[in-house]
């Protein structure tokens, strides 16, 4: 009984000393060191910003090369499924979550007074910059954050002006189940920034929406940007094998942009822009 009490007493004292130390030395020592991320978007930005030893867990989605650009790095950590029960035993000092995902876990963690930072969805390049800054501030790595943003700015370059875009080729985004990303989505922002005109402009499509095959065919875009195909079969993907689609776009370029570049708005989104800009310059050179 007695030795235990002494140990407790010591640990309380030690805790107080450490705490005062932290306050005394300011921000540097208050850096979160037990960080858990519950969303594939926060996962990637977090891994870019901080040293591996400060991260306890990222999601299992982050290990999927289709969804995440840092899938190898993500395997170093415990991969969570976004459940509060997985988070509690880790005793994190910072939890990062998406604004619309793992709501049950986030509600519970907030009620238990955990330090939870929720990241909004990035629909624009500015949204990506904002999100990097939000996480950089939360993990006290502002300088590293600004450096990442400078590199991102250099990679994405300036958007073409509307006048330059007037005669640009039209690109159509076409996903499984005949869905497309319209105005206001990140993918649409990306193709416009890369200098294409967007099919959603002429169709008046806002947000994600269904574009029937007939509408796609009759609007005759110059470029088809399709979703990544999975090797296993599903009806959702059969639209890409439809004979009408094959014939209509037989002599058109068809390109796949890896989903991981724009499922989440992250600095890796710059790679989608670079890829599509190069393709547009090649297409315009051919004309």
């Amino acid at each position, binding site marked *: 009984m007695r030795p235990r009490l002494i140990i407790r007493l010591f640990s309380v004292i030690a805790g107080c000393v450490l705490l005062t130390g932290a306050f005394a030395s300011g921000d540097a020592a208050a850096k979160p060191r037990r960080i858990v991320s519950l969303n594939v978007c926060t996962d990637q930005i977090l891994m870019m910003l901080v040293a591996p030893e400060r991260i306890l867990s990222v999601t299992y989605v982050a290990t999927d090369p289709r969804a995440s650009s840092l899938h190898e790095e993500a395997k170093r950590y415990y991969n969570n499924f976004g459940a509060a029960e997985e988070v509690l035993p880790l005793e994190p000092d910072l939890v990062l979550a998406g604004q619309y995902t793992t709501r049950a876990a986030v509600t519970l963690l907030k009620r238990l007074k955990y330090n939870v930072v929720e990241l909004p969805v990035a629909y624009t390049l500015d949204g990506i910059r904002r999100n990097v800054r939000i996480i950089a501030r939360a993990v006290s790595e502002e300088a590293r954050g600004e450096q990442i943003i400078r590199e991102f700015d250099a990679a994405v370059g300036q958007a073409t002006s509307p006048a330059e875009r007037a005669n640009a080729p039209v690109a159509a985004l076409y996903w*499984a*189940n*005949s869905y497309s990303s319209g105005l206001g989505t990140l993918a649409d922002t990306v193709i416009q920034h890369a200098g294409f005109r967007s099919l959603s402009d002429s169709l008046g499509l806002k947000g994600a*929406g*269904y574009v*029937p*095959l*007939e*509408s796609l*065919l*009759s609007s*005759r875009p110059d470029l088809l940007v399709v979703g990544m195909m*999975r090797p*296993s*079969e*599903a*009806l*959702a*993907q*059969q*639209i890409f*094998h*439809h*004979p*009408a689609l094959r*014939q*209509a776009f037989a002599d058109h370029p068809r390109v796949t942009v890896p989903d991981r570049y724009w499922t989440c708005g992250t600095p890796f989104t710059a790679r989608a822009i670079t890829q599509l800009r190069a393709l547009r310059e090649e297409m315009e050179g051919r004309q």
Partner: protein
Amino acid sequence: MTGPRNYAPIVVPALAVLLIISAGLSLLVGPAAVGFGETVDALLGGEIDTASLIIREVRLPRTILGITIGATLGLCGAGFQGYLRNPLAEPGIVGISSAAAFGAVCTFYFGLANLFALALPLGGMAGALLAILLIRALAGAGGSPLSLILAGIAITSFASALTSLALNLAPNPFAALEIVFWLLGSLADRSFDHVWLSLPFMIIGWVMVGSLGRPLDALTLGQEAAETLGYNIRSVNRRLIIGTALSVGAATAVAGAIGFVGLVVPHLLRPLMGHRPGALLLSSALGGALMVTLADVAVRLLSNGPEIKLGVLTALVGAPFFLMLILQQRRGAA
């Protein structure tokens, strides 16, 4: 009281004309605006442009499938009802369609249909055959309508559960959401690939079931009377089973399970055809084709966004009908 009149000579041509009109509608209705003249041009050949591509490769295969699948369901419904002398027998209700969907799901999502395309209809036909054999064992000819329906409910729910399980185990994450297609059926964005995969089997099935007119008429006198008239009941039975398995199996493999067509159509036409099961076969095939084609046009007109499934419409018409039939049966029994 006037006796049942025979409208047979008018019904078949009338249905044929209505079917041609609805097929024309099916070619004209869709999200892309293609004019009447352009549609006719596209069908008659001419240069390949976007409009002709839409008509020839999107709407034409869809229309053909609507007609052939509808004909299959109407014909097999009429055949089964005649053979079992049970007005509730129908591929959807007795579980043949659900089992065919399960067979197709097994070949499609696990890569077999990628290795060789015919695996898809073969899977559907295997599932359909299995269900028919089960139905026969559980509630064969002469069994009560009630035992047939009970067996059908059991097979349908079992096959649907297996389909759901298979889709959840399928490697593609979209698969789990696609159960709606398999349980309710749709012709959205089907292509000539699907026509070629299913049509040959459907035609063989039609010939087998369609040639049963005379023996089915004889069967109304009872099995023994039919046999004394020279009809081999075992062979009739075999042709009906194999023909239904081939055509319904192939139809379901490319369009999912579309219910109630084989129930409603023969029932509506029966009084017009003088209650002769043999005469009912051709008219039910035409009527089924008409019903599915019209439902498929309606689905396109009603949907703003992803299309409503075909089976939703046929069930909206068919389910109240089914209830009405049960009420009539109860009254008949009382």
